[in-house]
């Protein structure tokens, strides 16, 4: 697990009503890759992170964030 990085992929998937498999197919990775990113087991590469953000039409910071930075600014 990587406690430093947080992601909102599950939230965006729910908003778009799509499964892990559909998102994986859309950005060209496997379902296992999406599921492990969601639970924080796998830190994606910059390319995968940007592809996910581009798919949901949001800046990458809206999908991924550093948890310790959020704590510092709070």
């Amino acid at each position, binding site marked *: 697990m990587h406690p430093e990085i947080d992601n909102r992929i*599950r939230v965006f998937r*729910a908003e778009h009503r799509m*499964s*892990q498999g559909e998102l*994986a*197919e859309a*950005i*060209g*990775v*496997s*379902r*296992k*890759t999406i*599921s*492990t*990113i*969601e*639970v924080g*087991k*796998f830190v*994606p*590469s910059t*390319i*995968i992170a940007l*592809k996910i953000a581009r798919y949901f039409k949001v800046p990458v910071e809206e999908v991924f964030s550093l948890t310790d930075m959020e704590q510092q600014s709070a």
Partner: protein
Amino acid sequence: MKQNNCAETVDRMQRGVAWGMLLCGITYLIILAEDLTPKGTLNSILDKVTLGGVAITMAVTIIAIWPALKQKLSGQLIGAKEPEGFLSGAMLTSFKNGWIATTLSITILLSLSSRFELLELPIRFYFTSLFAIAVLSVSISFFWLTREDDLENMED
């Protein structure tokens, strides 16, 4: 031209190769047992099991690699343009772990070499042991890193 999502194919190949390595490692452990067993019924049984192990290892590996190879040859699998995935990362980490396990084993063998000389085992025994350790450590590490997690399977 429509590009197929090759990530699932690559994932299946990685899993298949790991299974092939696991079976290969087990086969080499059986070869070790065969080398240590005196000629007789048990030895001939182990010999036949080894032949079966080699055949199964080759079949599993070829079945694992063939779909990816077929896509590659037909131009549908463009590895360099695909982002890396979880299983590819796990395989690389497993190769690193396998290298550590093999290096540690060589270090132990070197430090105890004078004692091993007393056992008068053939040199083939040590090479077989090291190969078994190398492939088994990679495959076991891969299966450990990629084990199913209940949290991952939660879709919503």
